[in-house]
Each structure stands twice: as structure tokens, then as C-alpha cells.
């Protein structure tokens, strides 16, 4: 089961290797990982981690083990807390002139924008939930995908005040 975890960490390279150490020791598969400097405090970094766990009980143990790291200032399981997660992808699709308009029309409902055009390919940029990006990639696969680059999810809690129900968050993350 997918878990989206948001961490505030010390801005040290050792922080990241310790986080990955916890994951690899527990043999957790990392689906995506994004790291950026914290806007408010240059000593911190924001990490969003998406992992796939076999059992629900593993989640709380994983969170506790991450929290135990001294480099981890804060850790949240966004799948329980009501998070919102988004991802950006660049997808280069083979589009010779005869099918080009067809490819463009497929991209429209996804609000994918064309950021590069070459003789036989189009590059789309799209943002959204990871599932939306998956769906787009599936859809254009038959045309021939030349390259894909995805950021992995970035996420935070939708609304800090109210303790959102698990239902709402699963909506937000889907």
C-alpha cells in the first residue's frame, strides 16, 4: 500500500543517507523521493517520500524509526493526516505530422502543455496526481514514448487545523 511521507530534515547529506538507510534496512521500496531546501529555514530540507508497504502495521513502525533519526526534525504520514500530493512530468511522444493533431487532442483533457516541438516528436509538461500522469502515459504509449522524466510526488497537509479523515486524504492522494 502506498504511503506518502513528508519529512523536515537537517540540511545535511548524511540526513538523506540515514533516511534511505532506514528504508533499505526495512526493505521498503522507494517509489519516489523529492528533496528541496526549506523556504523558511536554510538549515532544513523538505523531503517527500513515496513508498509501497506490504502491511499497514509497517507504516507506523517506519514513521517511528524515521522520527528517531536525529537529522529528522519532523515526519508526517500524509496518508493518514490528510495530505495533498502533486507531481510534474515531462513526456516526449513520437508524433509524426500525420498523427500530430491526434496526439495533441489526447493531451488536452489532461491540461498538458507542449513545451517543445521537433520534427517527429512533441514534449508535454503535465502536473497533477501521480495517477493522472500514469493515465496519460498509458494513453500515449501506443504512439511511442521517447522519453519520460517525473519529479515524484511533492506533498503536504491540506489543512492543518482540522484533522482530516482518512477518507479525505485518500481522495486527495488518488
Amino acid at each position: 500500500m502506498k504511503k506518502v511521507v513528508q519529512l523536515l530534515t537537517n540540511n545535511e547529506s548524511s540526513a538523506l543517507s540515514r533516511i534511505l538507510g532506514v528504508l533499505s534496512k526495512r526493505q521498503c521500496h522507494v517509489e519516489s523521493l523529492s528533496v528541496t531546501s526549506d523556504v523558511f529555514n536554510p538549515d532544513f530540507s523538505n523531503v517527500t517520500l513515496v513508498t509501497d508497504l506490504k502491511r499497514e502495521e509497517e507504516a507506523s513502525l517506519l514513521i517511528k524509526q524515521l522520527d528517531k533519526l536525529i537529522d529528522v526534525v519532523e515526519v508526517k504520514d500524509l496518508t493518514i493526516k490528510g495530505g495533498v500530493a502533486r507531481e510534474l512530468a515531462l513526456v516526449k511522444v513520437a508524433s509524426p505530422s500525420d498523427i500530430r493533431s491526434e496526439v495533441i487532442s489526447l493531451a488536452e483533457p489532461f491540461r498538458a502543455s507542449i513545451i517543445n516541438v521537433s520534427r517527429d516528436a512533441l514534449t508535454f509538461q503535465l502536473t497533477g496526481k501521480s495517477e493522472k500522469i500514469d493515465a496519460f502515459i498509458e494513453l500515449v504509449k501506443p504512439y511511442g514514448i521517447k522519453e519520460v522524466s517525473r519529479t515524484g510526488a511533492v506533498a503536504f497537509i491540506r489543512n492543518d487545523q482540522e484533522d482530516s479523515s482518512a477518507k479525505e486524504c485518500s481522495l486527495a492522494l488518488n
Partner: protein
Amino acid sequence: MRNDDKTVMRVRTGADLLIESILASGTDTIFGYPGGAVLPIYDALYGGKLKHVLTRHEQGAVHAAEGFARVSGKPGVVIVTSGPGATNVVTGLMDAMMDSLPLVVFTGQVASGFIGTDAFQEADVLGITAPTTKHSFQIKRASDIPRIVKEAFHIATTGRPGPVVVDIPKDLAGQVVEQVPDEEMNLPGYRVKDDLDIDLLQVKRLGEALSASERPVILAGAGVVHAKASELLLEVAEKFNVPVVNTLLGLGSFPADHPLFLGMGGMHGTYAANVAITECDLLVNFGARFDDRLTGNLAKFAPNAKVAHVDIDPSELGKNVKTDIPVEGDAKAVLNSLLMGSYPSPDTEDWRKLTAKNKMAYPLQYKIEDNQILPQQMVEWLHDYTKGEAIVVTDVGQHQMWAAQYYSFTKPNRFVTSGGLGTMGFGFPAAIGAQIAEPEKKVVAVLGDGGFQMTLQELAVVKERNLPLKVVILNNEVLGMVRQWQEAFYEERYSESLIPVQPDFVKLAESYGIKGVRVESEQEARQVLAETMTNNEPIVIDCRVKKLENVYPMVAPGKGLNEMLGVKA
């Protein structure tokens, strides 16, 4: 005014700051081994106040620091050089990590500008030690040294204790520091709960569960020893009339001669302890982490019990055993709170009769067949000739289990052993560290012939410091624990476990200037123990014991705790 004062102002370097900071932490003794990258640090040590114990191998230094920490409750401090010096301490770091011992280990590093270039004696110490430490630091600026040393000691000794590494590039140790800022610790990701900050709601549930129980058992681990909570444990056990089982590392946290004591549980635990865990309706774990050597097959572990687990480390709660009442907190505070609360004592008389009957009917036992010394007997004699008051330090193997089983520990901090990692080579240097921490106390190292050969070079330290350490080798000329498993599970194919070619341990001791003696019969053993256990001299006793003796009872891997082998028929 002319300044013709002759006094030379000695400039302060990073290394000076380091030594000052170590002293400021309250440390007076460190263990270590010099080398290129730590030359500035060793120079700063020279002639100073900090006592340095030069072991003859870095592994010896780190295990000595563990032994020191274990009996003194103070952090063990180590300095080693970069590269091979640092990699030689990894086993000890992992050992301390597993057994929650506070260590602060300073490793030399190549000069800042060379890091990452595969320079001479460079090792990625932070990378190598990340999984084996509670935390690690690399010094980036010499002026950070006081703050980082403060932080390292704080992390090592608070919460669940553990090892911390501080990696120090050589140039920064040598650098002159003009301004030394008096900085506060800055650890936003490290929150230590106040000792008294415990989960009161869960404590209440625990108190109520105890009151309602009919067949309760307390499992007491090292957490009780760390929390200095043995007396409170005794009070709680007596108040609620609960039988007590110890883990290996918890031995001594409850008096072994108490009627409520059922012995050690687990793979080589007593029948009474293991059956009680299997049959109880409430299992209250204070400061043990449900290691697999204690639980056996988890599916068969305490099948009828409500499980309560008190641990200072929340990530232990529910990790191995499903827990009904998880109590995050310091064992001492939780025990105290249980005593303060108005929880009625349950009526456990029938249950106690049953556990006491098991204890009587199925004691630990061995069979004397000829006049060869049995290792179990030797441990019992050791107990008698040290009046049960020695600090017993063991290595890993059969002798470790016999020491745990037969030396009835009545007080905490008297048993030092490598539990979680099971590190051969630990015992002898750890005993040195324990003796240095407690120079007035009787320290006995109970070692295997195999494990002693892993770190025996530290005999030099015993001689050099004239430590009154007693070394007892339970010499079966085999890697006994391996041989026992080969006998039990590999049809007696003793693959690489027989080691008849050995040094003459007596001459070996003598070559270091230490008295050595071999004993082969009860009479010799008693005579030597009578002579040596009360004097202040070091001694190495090569005690020849029966080779093929096995440790029983035994729970085979994959079996439940009640499926013990080697219990009296």
C-alpha cells in the same frame, strides 16, 4: 608598556578544544590508539589531565569503552585514527548500538581538502558507521568542536543510549582557533522526553490489567538496569505478587535468590521462565526488546497473554510482538507511577504455586560423570569464591550462557555481556574497561578459548596498568556453541569448530608478565580460586573443562518457548 613577559601564550587548536570539551563532559578516562590523522589530538593529550588507555587494537578500545560504560553508567569514550583505525571500531559500534550503550567515538579523518579523493587512510566513516550509530557528526569548522562534542555526549547518554561518532579532519584538529563561541546545542530533531513524561493513560491501563490478572509475568530487560530501577521493580513485583523473568541483558535487575524469580527466559532460559511466559495471561515487559533469542517462534510466544510493553524507545513498541498496552517511557518512572496508583493487588497465589513448583521440579541441571570439571560447576565455584559479588564479564558462546545461568546475579550492573550482536572478542577488553571503571571491585572475565584468542593482545593493558582482573578461560578446545549446533542439527559434522591447536595460555600470560595457571580438577580449581579471587593480582586461569558438554535447556530455532530440549525428564 613593554611586553617582555617570557611566558609563551600557547595557541589553542581544534585538538585542544576537543580535549577541553571531553573533560568538560565529565570524562576522565578514554580508550584509544594513535595514528597519522589524530597526531594533533594525541599531541594535545600529551601530559594532560585526560587519562588515556592505550589498547593494543582499536577493537579492544571500543569494547573496553563498552565495558566501562556498562558498569559505570557513564559514556565510554574512544579516539582512533582515520581509515583502518575507524573501520576497526565498527564491530564495537554495532555492539553498542544493539545493546544501547552510550559511547562517544572520535575518529580521525584526512584533511578537509582531501576528503573524497581516496587519500591515504581515508575511509567514508560517516557512511560506514551510519547504520551502526545513534548519530554521527563530521567537524566542518574547528570552532564547532565544543558544541558538537556537547551534542555528541548528550545524544549518546540520553533517551535510549547509543554510540555516537565524531569524525575530525586532521587539518581542523591542528587549526588555531582564535574565537571560541560558547554555543548552545542545536538539535532540532532530537527531543528527549523528561524522565517523568510518561504515558499516564497507558500506565493506568497497565495498572488495571495487573490488578485484573490471574497469571501475570514480568519480563525485565536491560532497560530496568539502564533506568536504575531495580529496587522499584522489586517493589512492584512484590506488591502485585508477580513472578519475574529476566532477559540475558536484564540479569541482575531482579535478585536471583528471590522467591518470585523464575530465571532467564529464552533460548537457554529455565523451564520455569519459559513455561510461565507461555502460560501467562498478562506479560509485562519492562525495558526488553523482544529479541528473537528471547521469544523463540513468535507465533507460539505468550499465546494467551495480554502484552504490555514499557520502553523508552517508541519504535520498539509493537515491533516484534503485538502489544495491547504500549507504554512509552522510562522504566523507573513507570514503575513509580504503578506504585503510586491505587491498583489493588491481584490474587496470584495459585499461579505462583505453579511457577514455584516448576522452578523446584525443573531446575537447571548438569550431570557429573567423571572427575573432569564441568563448565557449569566452575561458574558455581566462581560464584562461591567471589561471594556472588563479582562483576562478571563474558565473551560469546556456551560459557556465556553458563555464566548467565549459574552465577546467580543478585544486583544490577554485575553482568556484562554482548547480547544483541553476540560479538566474540568482546569479553576480555570489556572486562578491562569494567575494571578500569571499578578499580576497587572484583572483575572476572569468563571467556571461551575461541573468543579469548580474538582479542587476547589486550593482556598488555592488564600488565601495563596492573589491573587486578581475573581471567577464567572455560577451555573446551572447541568453538563450543557452534559445535553444539552441529551436534544438534548437522549430525555431528564438526566442520571447523574443533580447535585443539592453541597457545599455552599459561605461558602466554607469563609472556606478558602475568601469572597463569592451568586447572584440571575440582581440587585444583578450588585451590586456585581460593588463592586468587581475594588478592589484588591479575591472573589467567586456563580451566580445562569437559569438551562435549552442551548448554541446556535449549529452544531450537523455530520452536516455541515451551518446546525445550534437555529438560529433566
